[in-house]
């Protein structure tokens, strides 16, 4: 069981980013949150409120998952383990909303 054997020996982990990058990401996350709340309060934005908010929060979601949870740096397998269920869950949510007439 010693060596990795899935053909392409994956790097176990690329070096995780350091504190500086982490703070940088936090700044971006803060800005997005601020924009989200602002959008909520700007009447002019209301026609596009839902898509805007969904996009922004998906962006936040991705940033946390990729940088703080290191999916960007870790093995692809971990991403699969997380993203496939995420997709199934999302499809289920959409399907149920359709089935209940939303």
């Amino acid at each position, binding site marked *: 069981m010693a*060596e990795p054997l899935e053909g392409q020996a994956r790097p176990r982990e690329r070096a995780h980013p350091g504190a500086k990058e982490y703070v940088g990401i936090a700044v971006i996350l803060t800005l997005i949150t601020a924009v989200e709340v602002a959008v909520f309060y700007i009447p002019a934005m209301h026609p596009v409120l839902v898509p805007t908010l969904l996009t922004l929060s998906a962006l936040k979601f991705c940033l946390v998952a990729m940088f703080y949870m290191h999916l960007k740096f870790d093995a692809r397998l971990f991403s699969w383990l997380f993203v496939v269920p995420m997709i199934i869950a999302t499809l289920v949510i959409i399907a149920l909303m359709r089935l209940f007439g939303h």
Partner: protein
Amino acid sequence: MATTTAAIHAPVQAESGLWSWITTVDHKRIGILYGTTAFVFFLIGGLEATIMRLQLMRPDNTLVSPDFYNELFTMHGTTMIFLAVMPLSASFFNFLIPLMIGARDVAFPRLNAFSYWIFLFGAIFLNLSFFFGGAPDVGWFGYSNLTSKQFSPGHGVDFWAVGLQILGIASLAAGFNFIVTIVNMRAPGMKLMRMPLFVWMTLVTSFLIILAFPVITVALVFLLFDRFTGTNFYVPAAGADPVLWQHLFWLFGHPEVYILILPAMGIISEVLPTFSRKPLFGYPVVVYSGIFIGFMGWGVWSHHMFAVGLGPLADSFFALTTMLIAIPTGVKIFNWLGTIWGGRIEFKTAMLFALGFIAMFTMGGLSGFMHASPPADLQQTDTYFVVAHIHYVLYGGAIMGIFAGIYYWFPKITGRKLGEGLGQLHFWLNFVALNVTFFPMHFVGLLGMPRRIYTYAPHMGFDWMNLLSTAGVFGIIAAVLVFMWNVSRSLRHGEVAGPDPWGGATLEWAIPSPPPAHNFGTIPTVHSLDPLWHREGPELVKTANRIGGPIHMPPGSHWPMASALGITLLLSGMVFGWWLGIPGVLITLYGIYSWAFEPCT
């Protein structure tokens, strides 16, 4: 520390006694525990079915009360699915997966023990309901709002919902464990596409478990909240829609169907090649169809709900996805036929059961195909036609597959073969009896007999077919008795098997029967899909049995059992009284912390 004391060459094996079984983390022992426990519940579920068949033997019968009858079919379904077929499959996962992939144990041995214990406690808890004010009587599917406090004021539904939550924890723990084990514990050289098909089906099943059980967990949480705190999840008066339960239930329930059948498909995919002396036909195609079935299993759940009235668009959508699943299923069947085609078939009992699986599962699949078409389904759903269908799939399919597996691997597990003569008798009795029992149900269903009715009127024409079904049950009972006799006889007097009685191709046949606690003296390197049939075979066997150095085996632990007990007490407090929750919480926390900080490996 434990590491040094455990580093002996042939450890653990010598240990015996009750405590060694309670603290065992050996996957083989846990597999045996799973198997025997599940078989006991298989007998209990069978007894429930027998009483039902006796009640339905003739019209207007009064053997049991309608309420008891409702309890019987609820517990029969719940028992057979959660306490018999799933844990029987789990028993095979446990015993075989590490052996087949060339590992010393599963990735998380103590989590594995925990999974067994919490399954056992959950199963006992569920069955205690018979003695504490009545078992659940709302069907294994527990459709809301019949399960509400208003319409089911007793504790039966609480036992059911809490019991399923406890059992869900067991399944989830096993699911995570086998995913990691299969992905991460394979012997060198065993690429994904060199894994035996049973390992593949276990992997797919495990993914289905970890993704499907959270959904039923949530649905049951809603139900428990409704019953205990007066929330409105399934309360129509508050604007809620009880159909939500059905969606959540079948979102779990359909993948669950594949959780029940895929392991059996995996088993026969091992048995057929061995007794045909020919490798599995179209291995990659069978693998991919298994994965495809698992994935598509998420897109068909509403075909259980055509009668709900989802509208023509949704009906069409779910009809088409359901029919789509028939393709990979058909492909599997043809590949199995391709496997035996041109082979040299030896009709050992295991092979008979595997061939019987193909014949019976095809029947079940075809009746399933008939109600994939919503208009036809509207005549068939909730009738005995569907009862026939599920029993051809789950009894003719899953259980026959499991029996094939038992006859095939019994020598590996015990070191002795099961008697061939009794085995053949078992198979033929079982095969004939199951058809006598379940085949008439197709017709009695099409002729208008709904399921879950405790009685029917004499002038409906259901009489003689029901009588026939009931008669068949006695054949099944006889078959099971023959099997039990065979097992008890063979355990003592069976022919000694040796490491490889059937000339199998996969790694588990390289080592002695029963395998030593450490499985492989040295983990062999694998170069092909069926290593023992290749030139590498003899060399591999030598390696697998050569002890090349100190072997680290994890020490036993009683914390998994303690944690399982704590969680069960905690949750059963919902039924027996909150005071039970206090020791429950304390034991759970103590157990988990002790477990987490206990040295292992």
